């Protein structure tokens, strides 16, 4: 069954679909996750906009105001237009290379850049192309793209903010969850971890994980109530735990670490289920907000024990 059928059959409201279907992962147990995602995103986001009187109301109204035509300024082609055209021509899907689709994607990109006064950076085009392939229709593609980019651009496409995120959110969370991996990745003299974090975050795992897997993560980003910078930190920590053996190997040096992480899809032998990844990532986020260090550590230790029969020795006890 596709996502639409399962969603219609099992959930009476958008909130139920979001809370139980997406965040508890029920939807992915019953549905073929590579079918019906366009419908799912339209339902989740369009209905969010149309819904009154629920917890998303305020956010929704802000979102609608931003997208409503009177606010749209006169569109002028940004200076980056040739680069955008070039990048769009390099998207890795035959459908996206069709002239009509290319034209639409270019228009959508310029529209979004103009409205938000963003400067184009490589990576925008891959997110847009992937969203188009789920929806194949300009209006909803633009809505979903904007919703995604409003979260991603200010943090992950800004070098200063990206570095701050790594220093103040990601690294401290990793240190609590796995002091061993933290010490391994933050050894003195190591390459900066921004080398791989930059790509992981900017294209939201498109280069590291299989597409159907990535789209489940994107369902969570699009419906999440957690700040994306914290949610992604939680997800990345789980993905690192997933290659704990490789990363913590005594002979794994600085270059090996970067090689593993820039070729994650080849390095990982057994990937945790995508819904489980998001559930655990979000649990880490909740506990991080509560500053429940013991539970954070315990969850990660249990994960390693159950999946790899590894005991994470905690020397620091911090």
């Amino acid at each position, binding site marked *: 069954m596709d996502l639409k059928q399962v969603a219609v059959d099992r959930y009476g409201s958008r909130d139920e679909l979001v809370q139980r279907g997406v965040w508890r992962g029920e939807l992915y147990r019953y549905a073929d996750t590579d079918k019906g995602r366009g419908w799912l995103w339209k339902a989740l986001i369009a209905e969010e906009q149309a819904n009154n009187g629920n917890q998303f109301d305020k956010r929704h109204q802000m979102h609608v105001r931003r997208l409503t035509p009177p606010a749209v300024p006169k569109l002028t082609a940004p200076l980056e237009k040739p*680069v955008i055209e070039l990048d769009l021509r*390099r998207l890795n899907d035959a459908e996206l290379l069709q002239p009509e689709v290319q034209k639409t994607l270019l228009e959508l990109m310029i529209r979004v850049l103009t409205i938000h006064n963003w400067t184009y950076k490589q990576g925008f*085009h*891959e997110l847009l192309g992937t969203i188009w392939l789920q929806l194949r229709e300009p209006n909803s593609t633009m809505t979903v793209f904007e919703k995604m980019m409003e979260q991603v651009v200010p943090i992950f496409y800004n070098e200063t903010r990206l570095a701050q995120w790594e220093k103040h959110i990601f690294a401290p969370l990793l240190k609590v969850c796995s002091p061993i991996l933290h010490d391994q990745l933050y050894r003195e003299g190591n390459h900066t971890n921004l*080398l791989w974090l930059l790509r992981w975050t900017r294209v939201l795992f498109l280069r590291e994980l299989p597409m159907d897997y990535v789209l489940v993560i994107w369902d969570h980003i699009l419906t999440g109530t957690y700040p994306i910078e914290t949610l992604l930190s939680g997800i990345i920590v789980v993905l690192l735990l997933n290659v704990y053996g490789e990363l913590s190997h005594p002979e794994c040096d600085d*270059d090996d670490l970067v*090689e593993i992480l*820039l070729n994650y899809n080849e390095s990982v032998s057994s990937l945790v289920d995508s819904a489980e990844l998001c559930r655990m990532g979000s649990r880490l986020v909740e506990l991080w907000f509560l500053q429940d260090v013991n539970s954070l550590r315990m969850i990660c230790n249990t994960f390693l024990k159950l999946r790899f029969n590894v005991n994470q020795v905690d020397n620091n006890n911090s």
Partner: protein
Amino acid sequence: MLQFKLVLLGDSSVGKSSIVHRFVKDSFDEFRESTIGAAFLSQTIKIEDKGSQQEVVIKFEIWDTAGQERYKSLAPMYYRNANAALVVYDVTQQDSLAKAQGWVNELKTKVGEDDLVICLVGNKLDLCTEEGESSSKPKAVESSDAEGYANEQGLLFHEVSAKTGEGVKQVFQSIGEKLYEFKKHELANSKGRQGAGGDTVNVQLQRPSTNDATSCCG
């Protein structure tokens, strides 16, 4: 085995990733996605020590970087501690060589090491070799101009086609030989320090931030 860090720099879409894939995987994709940030691959080659006639294995750790102008601020993160740089331009794009020259200047001013091997590489040679073909493009950068510039700056110079593979192996071979030539003496010292424990020496020659020219990785 000797390990060297090599970084690819150059404008967007000049074929940096295609050169790497031709070298590492001996393959070519007509449509290659843009590089986001950087990619990391490794490949080994063998060169001959001219003195001893012995074969030396060199491992290149290759950092393939994104060419978009806006990533430029991140470039030092990738070329830090590099032993060699491939600065790539597109022989069919007139302004491409000038942009490559910009990268060479940046490397020379920011890295500033005399023994950093820089190789200027003109790619997409295949596009201008078939005269009269509808797909052929005029060669917009003359070999003599690029080669003259390379000689002036003390760079290695090659023209290649990642698509056909023409010249690609030679690029890495010549870089390997030059690096080996530079590092031979350091290696001899390193061997001496390690004693006569074995026949092979496994040395990483990435520039450490401590300025210690060689370091051992066991």
